[in-house]
């Protein structure tokens, strides 16, 4: 019996081994997972007694055990288990697991996610019952079938599914090593979060008198990525039936994952589904989706749960403050007014300027509100109150515009002897959805002759012409984002704040993947691309100073534990990223004086 075990390592960006560039095809294993009464007999046929009512719990404990064994990371410990520890009645899986777990000394709780229900897939159950004794093991290193060929629209989907899915938490173990009827797959792996490395060879397996088979949810993770990529390709090739089938599969695979991976996959699956149905023209285009009030609300939660927006505001403000040094009348034009969260800190800094504050004027631009409430005015009123409290002379004007391109320089009413700053946080990229809009806006910006223009944008290229490339980029980007939110601990996992922040990102994912043309507004581009664009428009770079860098670093240390976040300086611009992946970039510009 051949048992080639694959080194399940793949390259990683950040703590995310799933999205490596390796294209190894994973084996097809059928691991039926059922929650109904029939499973008792099935496992009993293999020699195990597990009550159906306990299945979920047993699966849960197996996952715990897998994680803990992975974290043990010492060969000594594992061989100790193999040879020294005495197990009693391993066929009673529930009790056996208890002993194993207690040996590990109260293993850490698995992350706070609702434990995936063992999926009841009738097809899988039926197929498994018919084929109960085999777990097919395929040779690992080479792909047995290239992805596109499997997903032939004519093929039987029912037959496809059981072969492909192995659920994290499946309960299968066997006390005998060799059995002509049954093939065993034995593997110990590290937990999903840690970089993968473990390989168990055949020889060590034979030493284990009571080997343990654990389903590798990391394998599912890699399978999940492949399914996502295959689906994107199918959609790009207009093979919509296959795309549909894959979306379903992605959903099932995603449910077997934990934490950030599951959320990202779910959002991407939904977005793919949306894209397919739009092409199919089954459901109407949900424009209500992009309701700006909802968007503002979600952004507030995003503001609270992770440091990206705070970083954006702090770094931009520092640049503006420095540009306003010595000026007695200042005017900020904010393209991204929203709730005005950026401005209290700037106003406070101006109030404490040596020599006293300048007179401060703020022009806020915002989209039209569906319920006709004048959100912009309300924000202005709050800021005016704050200004009064700290004795800063303040003037406010709000402009409603569905697109920044609708702005005329004269409207902005720039007065003589006024130092102007233009600020845009995550707004400029939207202009790329309509031809000519960007040029128009940059022209308007130049026309007001600003001292400084601060631009904060997502650091990613989500605007490439090829759909699959965009999709891949976005998958990497949002995986890092979700990872960072999972890891940063600013709020309790599962809290409303976190859920809504995730929704905020989910809407972006939806837009990048499902929309096209003028509707696709989340056209993020990299700093390098923005540099070229700004330079072409006649702007010169302004270096963000070390003040900004230090304060940003301190901000992270204070709020995010500082562990995974990195502030980087990049030729005068500042970037905030998660581990090695930069995620947002702040840059500053001015019109060079000739």
């Amino acid at each position, binding site marked *: 019996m051949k048992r080639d075990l694959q080194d399940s390592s793949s390259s990683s960006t950040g703590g995310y081994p799933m999205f490596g560039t390796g294209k190894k095809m994973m084996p097809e294993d059928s691991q039926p997972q059922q929650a109904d009464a029939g499973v008792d007999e099935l496992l009993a046929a293999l020699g195990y007694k597990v009550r159906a009512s306990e299945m979920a719990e047993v699966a849960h404990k197996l996952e715990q055990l897998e994680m803990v064994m992975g974290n043990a990371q010492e060969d000594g410990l594992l061989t100790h288990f193999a040879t020294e520890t005495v197990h009693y009645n391993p066929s009673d899986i529930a009790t056996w697991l208890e002993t194993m777990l207690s040996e590990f000394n109260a293993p850490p709780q698995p992350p706070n996610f609702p434990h995936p229900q063992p999926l009841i897939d009738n097809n899988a159950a039926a197929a498994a019952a018919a084929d109960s004794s085999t777990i097919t093991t395929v040779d690992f290193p080479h792909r047995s079938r290239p992805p596109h060929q499997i997903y032939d629209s004519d093929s039987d989907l029912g037959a496809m599914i059981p072969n492909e899915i192995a659920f994290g938490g499946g309960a299968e173990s066997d006390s005998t090593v060799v059995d002509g009827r049954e093939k065993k797959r034995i593997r110990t792996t590290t937990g999903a979060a840690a970089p993968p490395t473990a390989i168990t060879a055949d020889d060590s397996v034979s030493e284990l008198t009571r080997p343990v088979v654990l389903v590798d949810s990391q394998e599912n993770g890699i399978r999940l990525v492949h399914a996502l990529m295959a689906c994107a390709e199918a959609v790009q090739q207009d093979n919509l039936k296959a795309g549909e089938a894959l979306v379903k599969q992605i959903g099932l695979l995603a449910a077997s994952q934990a934490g950030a991976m599951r959320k990202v996959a779910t959002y991407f699956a939904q977005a793919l589904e949306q894209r397919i149905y739009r092409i199919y023209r089954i459901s109407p285009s949900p424009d209500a989706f992009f309701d700006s009030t909802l968007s503002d609300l979600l952004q507030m939660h995003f503001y609270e749960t992770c440091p990206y927006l705070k970083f954006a505001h*702090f770094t931009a*403000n520092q640049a503006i403050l420095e540009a306003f040094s010595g000026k007695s009348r200042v005017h900020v034009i904010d393209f991204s007014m929203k*709730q*005005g*969260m950026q401005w*209290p*800190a700037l*106003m*406070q*800094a101006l*109030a*404490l*300027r*040596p020599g*006293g504050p300048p007179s401060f004027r703020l022009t806020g631009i915002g989209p039209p509100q569906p319920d006709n409430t004048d959100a912009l005015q*309300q924000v202005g009123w*709050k*800021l005016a*109150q*704050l200004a009064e*409290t*700290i*004795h800063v002379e303040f003037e406010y004007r709000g402009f409603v515009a569905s697109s920044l391109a609708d702005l005329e320089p004269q409207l902005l009413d720039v007065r003589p002897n006024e130092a102007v700053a233009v600020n845009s946080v995550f707004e400029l990229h939207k202009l790329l959805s309509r031809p000519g809009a960007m040029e128009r806006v940059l022209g308007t910006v130049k026309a007001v002759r600003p001292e400084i223009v601060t631009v904060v944008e997502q650091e990613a290229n989500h605007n490439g012409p090829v759909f699959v490339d965009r999709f891949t980029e976005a998958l990497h980007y949002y995986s890092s984002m979700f990872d960072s939110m999972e*890891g940063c*601990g600013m709020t309790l996992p599962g809290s409303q704040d976190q859920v809504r922040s995730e929704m905020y990102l989910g809407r972006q994912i939806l837009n990048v993947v499902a929309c096209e043309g003028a509707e696709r507004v989340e056209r993020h581009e990299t700093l390098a691309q923005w540099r070229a664009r700004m330079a072409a428009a006649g702007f010169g770079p302004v270096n963000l100073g070390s*003040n900004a*860098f*230090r*304060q940003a*670093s*301190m*901000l*992270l*240390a*204070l709020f995010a*534990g*500082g*562990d995974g*976040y*990195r*502030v980087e300086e990049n030729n005068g611009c500042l970037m905030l990223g998660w581990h090695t992946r930069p995620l947002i970039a702040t840059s500053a510009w001015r019109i060079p004086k000739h």
Partner: protein
Amino acid sequence: MEMRTGISHLDEDLLFEVLKHVDARTLGLAACVSKQWWKTAKDERLWEMICTRQSASIGCGNQQLRSVVLALGGFRRLHALYLWPLLKPPPTASSSSSSSSSSTASSAVTVTSLPALPRDLILPHWGKDEVHLSLSLLSIRYYEKMNLNLNKRGR
């Protein structure tokens, strides 16, 4: 009537004079002694001294700073919520250390650590960046609270 004597029954003004000379931790502890002490220890002037005594100057006048900080929530809050946490190594959820976070936070905070001295004699020092950051965060907090109040009234 019984005459009560002892430090816990000090005259308010005298207590104030004494508390002018203590450090933040002691001042915080003092507030827990009794109602009278609490009333005295939360005096903004004392906390202003704590904040400014060991902070780098940010260039503005004392009166200027005072009016802004008092308007935005006060020195006691500034210290408790932002200055004090900036002194400590940030709490980390994972097992990886605060040494990694201190490598990202290029902190200008220096805590003179002389192992021989009792803790109370370790003097904190806040640099300009810490002060600016703390003030910014205080103003954001004030603004956020404003939002909440307005929402409550509106509904």
